[in-house]
């Protein structure tokens, strides 16, 4: 049982690390801002889920797990939000992909 948990946690953490690597690679290699952010978004969403779940399995039923869970919730709330804010700011500032239609910000009060 102990060993099974250990193996599972290591698999989760390694997968998380692989996703971080893919995210970093994508951020370097993708052609424009939006596709780069799409790649970097992986490091905000799936990677922390996997890595923190792995760490929680390592910590067991302790206070540390609760703290890790709180960190995970915080990361899952803020990461995608900041990605969204960045993309939206880029769109408003007039960054375009080649395929995208021109964006007209709607003015509402």
């Amino acid at each position: 049982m102990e060993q099974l948990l250990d193996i599972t946690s290591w698999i989760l953490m390694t997968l998380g690390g692989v996703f971080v690597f893919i995210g970093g690679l994508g951020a370097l290699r993708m052609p424009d801002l939006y596709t780069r952010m799409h790649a970097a978004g992986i490091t905000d969403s799936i990677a922390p889920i996997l890595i923190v779940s792995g760490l929680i399995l390592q910590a067991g039923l302790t206070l540390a797990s609760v703290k890790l869970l709180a960190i995970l919730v915080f990361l899952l709330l803020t990461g995608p939000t900041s990605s969204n804010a960045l993309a939206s700011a880029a769109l408003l500032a007039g960054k375009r992909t080649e395929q995208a239609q021109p964006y007209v910000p709607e003015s509402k009060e």
Partner: protein
Amino acid sequence: MTVIFGVFLLTLLLITGIAIVQTQNLFVSVMLSGMFSLLLAANFFLLDAADVALTEAAVGAGISTVLLLSALAITAKHEKAPSSNSNRVVALIVVTVTTLVLIYSTFDNPRFGDPNAAVHQHVGPWYMEKTAEAIDIPNVVTAVLGSFRGYDTLGEVFVVFTAGIGVLFLLGTPLGPFAPGNPYKSTDPKGLRHYLIPRVVGRMLIPFILLFGLYVQFHGEYGPGGGFQAGALIAAAIILYALLEGEDRALKVIPRGVLIGLIAGGALLYGTVGLFGIFLGSNFLDYSVLSSDTVHAQQMGLILIEAGVGITVTGVLLSIFHAFAARGKF
């Protein structure tokens, strides 16, 4: 393992530093300096300096990035090209000489983690030994900072106080930012009020950031934390509110007059606690006479002065932020 990780972080720190110098785009260099602070905070944490790491993360990576960005909003976005080559030669010579002197001075430093180093032999052991007996709190850092070396911390609070006053003199407008007739009207007083997603998530997070700030403030005797970190966290929560909801609403929460009161009040609280030591027949900043039980009195003094530190830091950081934001765009 820790050493390898530390060296890795220091290498990243070096790369970030070079990138900051290299880039001409000031926005990029502000973002990089945020990264620099975060890496430094991780390094401090590796060296078991959790209190310093918390300060560095909250002030360096959080608040100062926001302050620098709001300063950038009223200046240019790109660095000016260096005027002449002769300046560069002088700069190169100065940097080379300084580097050589610094490298030379490291030869006399004790080895990393050497228990016989001078810092570990001087007053350190005495503090470690006496804290449990005199103050009875687990976090020796807070005991040293607040009680044993209370003078230094008082000085730091007054440095923060003076810095705040200085920035307000340079930037602060006598009128409120939205008062009629104020020439420096902020261009967009509404913040991100129109933009739903950050607003919803941000508003959800603000109470927790405030709660964490209060925890760091009042748990400073038992874990990493204290007034400086808590002040930065609480200021960060309110700055987040200002960014999301707009300057005017944030100023309704804590008006300018209250902020000035916080700046002065915190430092005053610290000084008053010190003076009470004199009035009750002991030395300045000796808390042990505040109550009949000396250990209890020390803890009381620590909580009071930490509250003073937190109040001043919150007031100064928020005032600086509002001073920048009120300038608007020229």
